[in-house]
């Protein structure tokens, strides 16, 4: 696909892996090149990805084939209104160093999306001005969507911990 070819040609080794699954485009990017690739995707006239549809993360702990590898994928879903095409970008980060640069300067919507990822997965976003929990309360300890968070642990604000 032209979009993935274009990214590989321009960024070379910074594009770790690409996949075209029935027209669904995915590119895995190194963390160092992430902001450059995102900015290019937004500003290039042929790509024109003006919308950050979603920003989320996946915990691959205990995932077959990924037990030793980087634990988290941070996933960016981009959409272009003008060109009507989509692209998924992924960054792999380790548990010890779970942080990626913030995309807040490129898309303001990244503000709350990054706070949600921090809340649920504990991935930090460097350069985010106000990285507080978005959905849970301040007193909550841990990050509940991590695979090693016990499914029935309760942290009630009031009432008994059942």
């Amino acid at each position, binding site marked *: 696909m032209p979009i993935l070819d274009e990214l590989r040609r321009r960024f070379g080794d910074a594009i770790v892996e690409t996949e075209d699954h029935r027209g669904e485009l995915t590119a895995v990017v190194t963390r160092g090149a992430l902001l450059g690739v995102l900015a290019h995707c937004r500003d290039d006239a042929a790509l024109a990805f003006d919308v950050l549809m979603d920003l989320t993360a996946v915990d691959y702990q205990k995932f077959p084939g990924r037990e030793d590898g980087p634990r988290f994928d941070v996933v960016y879903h981009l959409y272009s209104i003008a060109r009507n095409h989509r692209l998924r970008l992924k960054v792999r980060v380790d548990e010890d160093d779970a942080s990626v640069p913030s995309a807040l300067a490129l898309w303001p919507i990244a503000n709350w999306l990054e706070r949600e990822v921090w809340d649920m997965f504990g991935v930090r976003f460097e350069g985010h001005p106000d990285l507080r929990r978005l*959905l*849970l*309360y301040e007193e*909550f300890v841990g990050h*509940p969507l991590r695979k090693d*968070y016990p*499914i*029935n*642990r*309760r*942290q*009630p*604000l*009031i*009432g*008994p911990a*059942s």
Partner: protein
Amino acid sequence: MGVGGFFTSKLDEAIGWARKYSIFQYPFVTACCGMEYMATACSHYDIDRFGAGLPRFSPRQADVLFVVGTISHKMAPVLKRIYDQMTEPKWVVAFGVCTCTGGFYDNYATVMGIDTIIPVDVYIPGCPPRPESVIDGLMKLQDKITAQVQRY
């Protein structure tokens, strides 16, 4: 029973009868059960028959707290505060399985039944309960209000 006891018990009955037909509810609607609550509250089921046709959206003017829908731990202090703001006499109805027991949620976010926070008078199970179940619960609440020894 003396003459005084006779009058007191008759007065109890009269007040109980009056109260059971003037249920002003406070609907604390947080989730999908709210649709079924709305269906019940609309004209087809006519809950005015039970004197419960008028919801009051202020806890200080309400008699019955209808907790309709999943309560999360983040919402729990709000619910407790609403309950504390209601004036006596007051009753609580747990509407739907999420408020009764937590329902199918077993996770970090959901309160395992509102009776861990506030006292509950009537449980209406169902996911969500049919309007018929709600009316059944309402009638059970009326029985409870009538039978209750009034504090005055």
